[in-house]
């Protein structure tokens, strides 16, 4: 027999909120679990921050420079706190923090088109006409949701063209998009007083009762009601403070940089503190088919402060052990410099940063040919392995198979673990 209190025990905070709000009893709400925000180190439930470099960042101008070779271009190198390891001199601040993460210089994929490459590097699967795979953030929020959260669990900053999606898990796992982070959120307050808002919502109920009969599956799939309820919950949540940066010290804000990326990284840290599971901070402009070097210089001036401050800030707040940080784009760029001083798409032997969340640190995996003659890198890491490793690190059974809407079983990730990092 079902225990009598079964309903109460499965009732989430959100249900309680809705119920009490309906009865005008919102003062009965339990306070937000401050302890959850206070937990530090490995006690915390883990989150992931992906710093997404849209367009395909050049590995030679970031984490895998080859100065003085025929493929190196004008880029110089700079030593890091990882003994014997240099990165491009465009990233002096990151060089001071990079030992907290790891460098992979031998990622391989088979997708050299922006849309397909983005799909691959956001989901761990190649595009497949019969199914839409979920992004890493969607898998994490579906598998390890934070039930105390009244703000979205999966957030994407910036104006990247293909934000992280829920795929076959459903559109409710799509990232909540914010184009210009750091200035709070728009459209968060009602335009009328409480009695009128109550009347409006009551009307809505009457209108949907007329429309929904014989359309229930479509209505439920539309997520119309769910998104409305979620929006109402969010509008009155104290957790919205996480999206603002007013109370952050000016020096810290300055250190992150007053750019979309910098503000995005700062808010990402605040969201991690509030318990948001997956955050994507996007920066565009890495598709440097022409004038690669100048282009990367401009990009680095924005990325270097934002990324390095993020790593440092997480570390100083003892959040890095519970936060996986990944920095990558859809592919790298050709060793060969084209006639426009640019580099073209290169899905073989490109680089990313990965670390935190309890992974080892200061490790460099893989090596590319300094002369660009050998296409394949040493110790190649298929892109798929990133996904298995991150999910595993978050305590999610990455080999678990879910049944997709077309009835096909599909593993959450199809790669192997990157043992060097565990």
């Amino acid at each position, binding site marked *: 027999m079902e225990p009598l209190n079964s309903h109460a025990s499965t009732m989430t905070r959100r249900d309680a909120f809705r119920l009490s709000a309906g009865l005008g009893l919102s003062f009965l709400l339990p306070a937000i679990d401050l302890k959850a925000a206070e937990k530090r180190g490995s006690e915390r439930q883990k989150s992931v921050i992906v710093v997404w470099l849209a367009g395909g960042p050049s590995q030679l101008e970031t984490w895998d420079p080859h100065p003085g070779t025929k493929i190196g271009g004008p880029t110089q190198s700079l030593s890091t706190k990882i003994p014997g390891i240099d990165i491009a001199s465009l990233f002096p601040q990151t060089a001071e923090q990079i030992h907290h993460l790891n460098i992979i210089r031998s990622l391989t994929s088979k997708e050299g*088109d922006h849309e397909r490459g983005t799909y691959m590097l956001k989901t761990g699967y190649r595009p497949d006409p019969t199914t839409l795979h979920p992004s890493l953030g969607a898998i994490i929020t579906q598998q390890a949701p934070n039930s105390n959260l009244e703000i979205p669990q999966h957030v994407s900053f910036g104006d990247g063209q293909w934000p992280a999606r829920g795929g076959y898990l459903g559109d409710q796992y799509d990232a909540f998009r914010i184009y210009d982070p750091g200035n709070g959120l728009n459209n968060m307050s009602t335009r009328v007083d409480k009695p009128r808002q109550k*009347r409006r919502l009551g009307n809505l109920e009457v209108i949907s009762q007329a429309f929904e009969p014989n359309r229930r599956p479509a209505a439920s799939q539309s997520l119309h009601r769910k*998104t409305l309820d979620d*929006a109402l919950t969010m509008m009155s949540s104290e957790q919205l403070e996480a999206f603002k940066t007013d109370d952050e010290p000016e020096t810290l804000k300055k250190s992150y940089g007053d750019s979309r990326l910098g503000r995005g990284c700062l808010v990402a840290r605040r969201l991690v503190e509030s318990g948001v599971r997956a955050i994507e901070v996007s920066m565009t402009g890495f598709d440097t088919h022409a004038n690669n070097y100048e282009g990367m210089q401009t990009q680095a001036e924005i990325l270097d402060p934002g990324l390095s401050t993020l790593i440092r800030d997480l570390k100083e707040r003892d959040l890095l052990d519970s936060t996986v940080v990944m920095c990558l784009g859809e592919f790298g760029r050709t060793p060969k410099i084209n006639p426009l001083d640019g580099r073209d798409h290169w899905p073989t032997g490109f680089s990313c940063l990965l670390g935190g969340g309890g992974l080892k640190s200061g490790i460099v995996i893989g090596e590319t040919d300094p002369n660009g003659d050998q296409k394949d890198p040493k110790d190649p890491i298929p892109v798929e392995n990133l996904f298995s490793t991150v999910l595993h690190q978050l305590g999610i059974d990455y080999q678990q198979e879910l049944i997709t809407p077309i009835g096909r079983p599909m593993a959450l990730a199809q790669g192997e673990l990157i043992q060097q990092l565990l």
Partner: protein
Amino acid sequence: MKKLRIILSPLIVVLLISIMVGMTIRPGADPAPLPSSIPDVDDFQSIGDTVNEELRLRRKSAGLGELQPASDLTVLRRLSLSLHGTIPSLEEIRQFESVQQSSSHSKPDLITRWTERLLTDSRFSDYFAERLARSLVGTDGGQFVVYRRDRFVDWLAEQLEARRPWHDITRDVIADKGLWTGKPAVNFITAGIAGDDLDHEELTGKTVRAFLGQRIDCAQCHDHPFDDWKQSDFEGLAAFYGQVNLTLVGIEDKPSLEYEVEDRLSLETRQVDPAVPFGLEWLPEQGSRRQQLAGWITHKENRRFSRAIANRIWALMLGAPYYTNISVDDLPDPPENPDLLDMLADDFREHNYDLRRLVRVITATDLFRSSSQSSAETEQEYAIHKEYWGVFPMTRLRPEQLIGSMLQSSSIKTIDQNSHLLFRAMRFFREQDFVRDYGDLGPDELDQRSGTITQALLRMNGNLTKELIEANPFNSTGRVANFSDNDRECIDNSYLVCLTRHPTANEMAYFENQLAELNGKQRTQAVVDLYWSLFNSLEFSWNH
């Protein structure tokens, strides 16, 4: 500048609505009359029957029964949304209902005649030009120096208005020469210019997606993993664009140019000659390389060409491509036995590639006129109903349809060509931000999506909602609240304006009760709140 815009735009919106409505409430020209004769009406009803039979067999194969017809007003709403990107005005609904009563048994039927009227309206050309432009040039701004998207869309609208056949439009788009301002068709080419160079590969992928409805982009780097496209096919097609030359007088063809690619593995450069992956006999011997490519693509035996546009127009009318699980531009190779797309494609070709004809045929089907209600009780069952077209699928309004509907709801009169410039000015100030915040899918706009929290917030609390529904003497909220004869009429008008239907008895009773005790400002507020609730209903923001 930005500040100025922020200050000015709400003022301008209010001003524009006032002028717009002020203009339209003057006794002016009567609404456009309903056409009494329609080209080839018997003929397209016969292809309609063929398509109905094919759809019946498809339903039967999944064990699904007959379609339930939708009400005329529901079909009217669908027609306006898919052909003009907005819901019908109260004025149009009144006209429709008056004709409905007087001509219930006339032939051709009222929906067919109404469709014809919408197709004759220049709003159709404008709206479809933008939809087609998305498949041809996407939504990005490109390089202003060589690319003018606005010119391209205007040009497309002119072609549609002049009823130019699709294969002629296609030929211009692929092979025209000249400046992007004077010969706007060439913007299809110049949209693909990055730096000073033409991105042949991007252009080739786009050409195949837009005109053949297939994707060969990945054959750019390797043989296609699922279909028969080889990397050499891709390069051969790209070579047709190999003589495109960007000059001071615009896009030209320079016969001395050759197309060269750099091998991705060996990094060596090699020359590639133009070649087609199939249908070699369709390739014209004369003309520039681009003219040859255009001739090959539009050749009457190239089934992919007509299938692709049939599938796209189907998706625009019904909310999803015919093969619902596959993107509109990712069709499988044409099957041996003709499928529904071939039936539509053959008819389209036989009628001189007339896009309006294709629309007429689709709107004449039982499916287009069927209800979005179904017997499906679970999401799985509903998925089958959708896949086998056992129901008119519910689809989220695209941002431009939603903003169009919200704007139309704020006026009693039709916002059309008479108010067109003003309407466009208002859209200019409001649409960009709204569409961005609502989430524009750009060229992927025919993908099926659910609602999002951001959208809910925007509809509930956004500026546009507030501006449009706040009652004033000119907008529909103000007029419905103050000039309806009684509460019942006020409620009825609100429903017609926003949802294109009458309220149910239950709804009528509920809102009559609500308004009964109120007077003056309080009553007006209640009507504003009713509008707000209608705007925020599932029914308003979805096509059904």
